[in-house]
């Protein structure tokens, strides 16, 4: 089949096997390799992208189900013409990355959590990011970064 989707604001039409995963289409066809190929079982969250205002694990999302969808990957989180948004800058200032492998998925999941109006407290943010595993940082700095943006965006 041929799917027409919007990726980071750009219309994309691709012939696909509908049972292919969104992750493989993003990385191998569109060369958007910020979205990481992690566990492939939906556990680690490194492949998180936003599909129509909901975060999903793209390793389990078949493309046959998302014809017409609006997709945002880490490459499009900041918005057109910007290097980083406030959340990405907060990850930098809080030192919320070590090896960096989980970071794109973490930022995408956190961005959707913020857009959904997560309560600005550590417990709610931890619960919201439970599907994103980081094996380096111990999470504290990640939570601090997201919390700082949750508070800043309320002002």
């Amino acid at each position, binding site marked *: 089949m041929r799917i027409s989707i919007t990726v980071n604001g750009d219309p994309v039409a691709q012939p696909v096997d509908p049972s292919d*995963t969104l992750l493989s289409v993003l990385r191998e066809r569109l060369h958007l390799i910020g979205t990481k190929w992690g566990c492939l079982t939906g556990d680690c969250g490194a492949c998180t992208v936003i599909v129509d205002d909901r*975060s*999903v*694990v793209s390793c389990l999302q078949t493309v*046959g*189900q998302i014809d017409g969808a609006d997709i945002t990957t880490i490459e499009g989180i900041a918005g057109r013409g910007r290097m980083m948004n406030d959340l990405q800058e907060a990850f930098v200032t809080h030192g919320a990355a070590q090896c960096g492998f989980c970071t794109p998925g973490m930022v995408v*999941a956190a961005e959707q959590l913020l857009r959904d109006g997560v309560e600005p407290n550590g417990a709610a943010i931890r619960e919201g*990011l*439970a599907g*994103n595993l980081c094996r380096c940082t111990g999470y504290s700095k990640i939570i601090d970064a997201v919390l700082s943006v949750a508070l800043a965006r309320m002002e």
Partner: protein
Amino acid sequence: MTSYYRPGSASEAVAILAANPGAMVIAGGTDLVIDRRLGRADPRAPLVDVTGINELRGVRWDGDELHLGATATISAIESDPAVIVRTSALAEAARVLGSVQIRNMATLGGNLCTASPAAEMVPPLMVHDAVAAIRGPAGERRQAVADVVTGPRTTILASGEILTNVRLRAPALSGSCYLRQTVRWAMDLAGVGVAAWVLTDGTGREAAVQEARVALGAVAPTAVLVPGLESLLAGAPPTTERLGAVSAAASAACEPISDTRGTAEHRRHVAGVLAARALSIAHARAAGLWSGGLAPVNGRASAVTSSGERA
């Protein structure tokens, strides 16, 4: 290339399944996509994607009847304001299933039809006496959810049949609760999952139990209803003594295995503890005594007194 069908109606889906023996139904895909990649399911089997079927979608209330479409997502159930208040056990199970991302994809029908012994949504559906609608070549039939799952990964659905919806009633003076024990507080399967439902004869501390059901998940090949609760509970409030008897009945109803999530003995014990706790909260909700919101996600619910107050 895999044959992939995206029917627009349940009857079209049934016709496609009849014409393609071995075809598999895909909804959220959170189990099936993994199983196909790992070869636990045939990766060449045709897929019938039911997420494009309007009549299978959504969470809807009609008076005190709750209508859950087979492809209603877990996050849609978790966030429905009336589900939270009137069928709290469903909301409490939904919000501990997987992660935000998984809940945005996974469906009620998938959770039921995948038939994991630890399926989060099954004990709450059982205590709410939910009825599943199943569509096949011969038309529609209804089955109590308690009878749908027949063993690990097996259901009564015949090949060619699909689940279309699950319905249940939430009458006035009823309340429910779901609690679970896990090793990790998130992204883990239940070691023990317990749902309780109570119908009372009034409000307040002295409200007597009219009907009660407790279902246990992850402690037997399928979720099980605890037998004999009516005689233990009916006609009186759930006193500490009566809750003790509920604990014993719940522990006795378990046939647990030992694995990484707990030993059989530990599961049996925890099932009893959580059964009394969940029943106490369900009674408090039914009797209008509960103001504590949903139970904590980590299963370590704060101690609850027999009158339903947080200790």
